[in-house]
């Protein structure tokens, strides 16, 4: 049994990282992720680990790049605008094949936008985000407990694939206070980080290591094509082995809701309301936003199910669902426009989703 705490999702991220053996955190203030940075500033020096506040998000992600090259588990956290700033380095790290964890506590956009919750970074997170051909595994927690657990998983997956891993939460999950059981999770053994730049003496072969970000310099791969093939192989393997989702009342469901993050909790409540009303509704909650459960959705579409995507944006997940069903089924949307009030404090409420379920079933 781990220690039980009543904490926010943002704080749970911190405890998760500490349990996973994260040695360095680099951050920069941006609402709504400030609690993460402040937690690390408070707790990491006590644990004898590294915390530094950089001069910008560009600074923090590049500090992570440096620490990752040294083979250390390092992470940063940010929100919308800062996430955009980090993309050049994220793309670079994918090329250099360095592991890191970045937490994106989503806020409204586009641009500066409001500082409150939204789910508008889905495309940017799941499509890589920066330039070039790469993808990151995107984990989407829907509770404080999951924030803690998925951050630990993120570190494991980052090391396993030598690729950045994104934990995509939102301002509601980040600021929601819940009971969390902090426990170190074992995922199994990982290969030694022999590629890390640690100094010749610390490598068994006594040779230097080079971390580089261009495939045709013949250091890591014989050609540019070989680099791309390797990246493609890696992405395929991630898609095959790392797909995670939660099915809720899916066995006999004919109307399937698709959601992640805070809207998944809203959708779950709506499913319960629908079931009480005799409507056979179910929910697919994305735990990995990428890899996306295309096959599961396709099978359900072939069986004649209808789909309702619930997301706090103008419609981003819905494009993946449409891609999965390939015109075989109806796909509907409850979007950011269906919030209960028009200000940035508005939320998608279960009643609204239930109304939509009744309308389309």
């Amino acid at each position: 049994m781990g220690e039980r705490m009543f904490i926010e999702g943002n704080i749970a991220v911190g405890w998760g990282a500490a349990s996973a053996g994260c040695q360095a955190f680099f951050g920069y203030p941006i609402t709504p992720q400030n609690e993460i940075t402040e937690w690390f500033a408070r707790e990491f020096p006590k644990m004898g680990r590294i915390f530094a506040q950089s001069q910008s998000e560009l600074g923090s992600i590049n500090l992570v790049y440096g620490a990752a090259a040294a083979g250390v588990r390092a992470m940063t956290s940010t929100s919308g605008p800062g996430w955009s700033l980090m993309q050049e380095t994220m793309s670079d790290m994918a090329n250099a094949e360095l592991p890191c964890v970045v937490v994106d506590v989503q806020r409204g956009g586009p641009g500066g936008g409001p500082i409150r919750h939204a789910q508008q970074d889905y495309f940017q997170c799941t499509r890589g985000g920066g330039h070039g051909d790469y993808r990151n595994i995107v984990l989407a927690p829907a509770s404080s407990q999951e924030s803690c657990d998925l951050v630990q998983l993120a570190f494991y997956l980052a090391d396993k694939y030598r690729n950045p891993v994104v934990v995509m939460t939102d301002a509601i999950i980040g600021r929601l206070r819940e009971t969390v059981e902090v426990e170190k999770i074992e995922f199994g053994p990982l290969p030694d980080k022999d590629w890390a730049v640690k100094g010749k003496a610390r490598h068994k072969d006594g040779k230097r290591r080079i971390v580089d970000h261009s495939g045709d310099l013949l250091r890591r791969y014989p050609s540019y094509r070989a680099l791309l093939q390797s990246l493609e192989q890696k992405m395929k393997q991630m898609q095959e082995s790392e797909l995670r989702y939660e099915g809720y009342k899916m066995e006999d469901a004919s109307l399937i809701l698709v959601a992640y993050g805070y809207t998944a909790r809203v959708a779950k409540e709506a499913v319960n309301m629908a079931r009480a009303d005799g409507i056979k509704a179910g929910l697919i909650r994305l735990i990995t936003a990428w890899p996306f459960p295309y096959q599961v959705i396709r099978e359900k579409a072939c069986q004649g199910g209808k789909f309702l995507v619930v997301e706090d944006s103008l419609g981003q997940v819905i494009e993946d669902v449409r891609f999965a069903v390939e015109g075989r089924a109806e796909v509907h949307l409850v979007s950011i426009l269906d919030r209960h009030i028009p200000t940035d404090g508005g939320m998608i409420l279960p009643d609204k989703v239930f109304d939509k379920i009744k309308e389309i079933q």
Partner: protein
Amino acid sequence: MTQKKKKLPRVFEYFRDEDQFAGGVAFCAGCPLELTLRILSKVLGRETIIVGTPSCSAPVLYGQNIGTWHRLPYYSCLMTGVASSATGLVRYYRKIGKDVTVVCFTGDGCAADVGFQPLSGAAERNENFIYICYDNEGYMNTGIQRSSTTPFGAATTTTPVGVVGRGKEMSAKNLPLIMAMHRVPYVATATLSHMEDFIKKLLKAKEKKNEGFVYIHVFSPCPVGWGIESDSAIQVCRMAVRTNYFPLWEAERGRFRLTHTVATPKPVTEYTKLIRKFRHLTEEELARLQEEVNSNFAFLHHLAEFETPKAC
């Protein structure tokens, strides 16, 4: 018969325009930002465009919910590019031949950290606008995190005081000196306790912006973040000047001049005892802070060879 001119109070002689701000704005109680903005718009006049970023000043300049608290044009842009965006604006107005004063109004986090690159770039290109940095020594809007202008020893949420932490370990970045080293037409420091000095500097800035880049660094205590009484912001400003913690000076193309000298500077403890963020400092730490203040002032004094007024 010679008509006797009615003598106005000294400070108000400088006001060129009516108040552009409404009464009662959305700042925290006792925040000196309100007075800074009010004076700024009165002195610089109605032909002023304020360029701002997400910051403490945003709620008032940018507006909240249904309206703003002022009548000036406002351009809200990114923290990473405020000086560059202002450049675009200025270049356009100069092209069409309209004389407007473009003022970037940002906090120290933007000026010294995330927006420093474009700021330095704009200064080097000598763009014709005024950049005003209100220095509250931290990211106050996001919850009192440290910035690179946070002084040694100050407690913030990312330099906490506790089992291990003792506040910020490093010294503050001296941003106005860095800007003066760009040898731009005008760089000055100002604060609200010395209002006449501030207004003179604003007037000079309005003139000098026709020659090129102008930078003004305004010392601006934060009642919430620093832990000071909400009626004591001006008092803290005055004590910062009297202890030489924040000396008032100006530099024209690298020629420094102290605009206010203190005959017998008070020890820095007179300043730190007003502020809760320094409460935990030990005597050794205070001695280090005093040493920093002394060496900074000695350096500045060395730079300001000419025209130093008599001590007052």
